[in-house]
Each structure stands twice: as C-alpha cells, then as structure tokens.
C-alpha cells in the first residue's frame, strides 16, 4: 500500500483515543499506538483488503491492548468514588490541576468533557471484551460484523458482548449519575465545575448538554445514546480540556492500581 503512512496518520487520532479509553494511560497508549504502526508496517503484505485498513489497524491495536491488560485487574463500578476520596486527601493533585486550569491552553473544565472522562473510568469495570465491543460500536461506530473481525469472534458473540456491556452501563449510570437521575449518588462533574469554574452557573452549563436536558424523559436507552454522543464528539488528546482531564485520568489510574 503506497499511502500507508498517510492513511495511518489519518486513523491515528481515533486509535489513540480508543486505546486511551481502554488503558486509561497516556504512556501505554503512545506505546501501543506506536507498536501498532510497527506491526502493521511489518505485516502490510498480509493485509488482504477483506476488511478496511481502519478495521485491520483497530484489530492489531486491540490485541496489543488486550495483551497489555491481561494481568491487570478490572476497576470497580464505584471507582470514581474511590478516586474522589483519594483526591480529597491529596493537596498536590489539586494544586497541579489548578495550575493546569490557569496556565494551559487545554486546561478548560467542561462538564461534557468530564462526562466522557467518567465513562472511561466506569467502563473499565466491565470485563475487557465487553468494554472493547462497546467502545467499538458506540463510540467508533463499527458495525457488528467489523467488531467480530476486530475481536476475532462470531457475530453472535459480538452481539452478546455489546448487549451485556450496554445493559450493565445503562444500569450503573442510571443508579449513579445525578445528571440523569435525581436519586443518583455521583455529582462529581458539577462539583468539579464549581471548583474550576466558580463563576459559572452549573444549571446553565447543564442546559447545553443534550443528555442532561433529556433526563426528565427517563428513557434509559436514549439517555445512554446521548452519553455516547458526548464521547463521539470529544478527542481526549485534542479537546480544550485535554490536559486537565488527562492529569485527572492519570491520578485515577494510579489510585485504582494501588487500590485493586
């Protein structure tokens, strides 16, 4: 393939965000994406074109991520509670975060960015296969047959992983997320908005988010689709809140690796 490098660079941003959302580690993401490039270039002759180049590259990256995570424990559904508790006792974390907020061009805090961040953390409580299938379908918009190719399984099992993952995440967010359920126990996005954007009116900010506006409907499936649309619209490396959120993600990963 003559334009492999060009094509890879075109797909690279999606690969990076995908692997970041699986690993929650910037360093691991960079390593896995680089290794994906090397492996793909080495094996370019074996690329038959039966699937798209994007599907092929996502398959290579997914396998590398799975190998990397095989021995690591999955996070827990209450990971954001555990990390919040750890952050409250970590003055340096807040000082660093506030410094990023004040000085970085990617230091904005936006509630919708935190919604995407929150999903990355909580989806790590799913079994890895379910997490991968869900991201591929709901965020990167692969078809079921492409997911089956990427994950090297039958379409029936791809559907099984998607169904179980989606059902589980809908249940967890319905129980936890105060944006969609008044009884929800987690308010971290609005809580952090109050810290980083003290002059903002949180209700006005929430009114800009489709998912929050639709909360009254109580349609859990639709609310989950809207949550996934938030993720689709955010590149965690390039957004206006990237540095702040990546700093927070690094904190959460270290806390969870120490906790598990």
């Amino acid at each position, binding site marked *: 393939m003559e334009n492999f490098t060009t094509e890879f660079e075109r797909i690279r941003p999606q690969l990076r965000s995908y692997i970041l959302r699986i690993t929650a580690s910037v360093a691991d993401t960079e390593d896995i994406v680089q290794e994906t490039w090397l492996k793909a270039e080495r094996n370019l002759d074996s690329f038959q074109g039966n699937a798209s180049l994007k599907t092929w590259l996502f398959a290579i990256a997914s396998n590398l991520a799975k190998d990397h995570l095989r021995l690591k424990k999955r996070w827990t559904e209450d990971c954001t509670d555990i990390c919040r508790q750890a952050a409250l006792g970590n003055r340096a974390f807040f000082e660093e975060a506030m410094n990023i907020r004040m000085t970085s061009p990617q230091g904005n805090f936006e509630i919708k960015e935190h919604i995407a961040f929150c999903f990355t953390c909580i989806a790590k409580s799913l079994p890895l296969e379910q997490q991968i299938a869900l991201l591929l379908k709901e965020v990167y918009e692969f078809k079921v047959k492409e997911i089956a190719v990427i994950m090297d399984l039958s379409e029936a099992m791809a559907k099984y992983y998607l169904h179980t993952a989606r*059902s*589980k995440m809908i249940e967890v967010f319905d129980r936890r997320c105060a944006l969609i359920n008044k009884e929800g126990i987690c308010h971290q996005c609005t809580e952090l908005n109050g810290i980083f954007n003290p002059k903002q009116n949180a209700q006005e900010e929430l009114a800009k988010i489709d998912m929050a506006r639709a909360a009254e409907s109580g349609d859990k499936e639709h609310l989950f689709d809207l949550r996934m649309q938030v993720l689709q619209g955010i590149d965690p490396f390039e957004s206006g809140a990237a540095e702040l959120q990546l700093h927070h993600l690094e904190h959460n990963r270290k806390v969870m690796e120490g906790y598990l």
Partner: protein
Amino acid sequence: MTKLLMLFAMTIPTFVSAQNAPAATVRKTFSRTTSVSTVIKADPAVIWALLTNAADYKRWNSTVVSIEGDIEPGEKIRLKSTLDPKRTFKLKVKTFEPEKHLVWGDSKGNRSYTLTPNGDGTVAFSMVEKIGGLMFPMYAKYIPPFDASFDRFAADLKQEAEKIGKE
C-alpha cells in the same frame, strides 16, 4: 406403509414437546428430580456465555439473587436463589464442556444444564436438578418445590438469548 407414516407423524409432536416441556418433578423415597426444557433460537455460544457469566446472572435471571465466583472447571461458586434468599449455596462446578454441558452441585445434589443444537438455528436447552441420598427423607419436606422457579429460569434464558440474537 400407511401405518408407518402414521407412526412417524405421531413421533414428531412427541419429539417437539420433549424439547419444550414445562417443569416437572419426579419424587422418590430417596431423591427428587426436577427438569425443564425449552427450544431457544440462538447461537449456543451465546446461551453458554449467559449460563457461565456469574456476575451477569441477576441482570437477566429472575430466579437468581446473586452468584459469586467464576463458573469455570473445578471452581467453587456461592449462589443465592429467590427460593431461599437468606441461604447461600456453596457449590462446585463439576462438569464444564463448553456449549454442551454444565453441572454444578454439592454433596446433596447436582444441577445440570445441557445444550443440544437442532441444526436449524435453534438449541434444545434442558435443566435438571436431582437432590437425594440416604438422609433425603428426613429433610425432603423442608425443600421448596422447584417447578415454578425452573419454568422462570428457562423462560428468562430463552428471552435473553433470543433478544441478543435480534439486535
């Protein structure tokens, strides 16, 4: 020839109904066996995945309060059933043949699940639980009937597996 055709015609409904039999219990002096069977239009791998994902049971199965542990060969699991939610059954996975046969149990009895592909995109699912032993007559009256719970289990499994296939 006519007699042969009639005999063949009579055996078909018998075969189909055996694959779709509501729960029934056979009581003997030293044992009690409850069984149920149903035909599920789904991939056997999906049915097997539902039967062996312990943490996911309570989401789709209205007869299970919780299952802790891994449903894998030789592993021990802790099951709470809606039949007696205060009691935790400590069970061992005794047979684990992927997409075919699963058995878990303890010293008093075994629960077995069998999947048999029909070759037409459907799978015959059967579930049998036999409890018994020399002491069985002494505690038999304390064990609640399983039939309604077995019917619900089979119906829940069929509904969930077929729903996944349609997505």
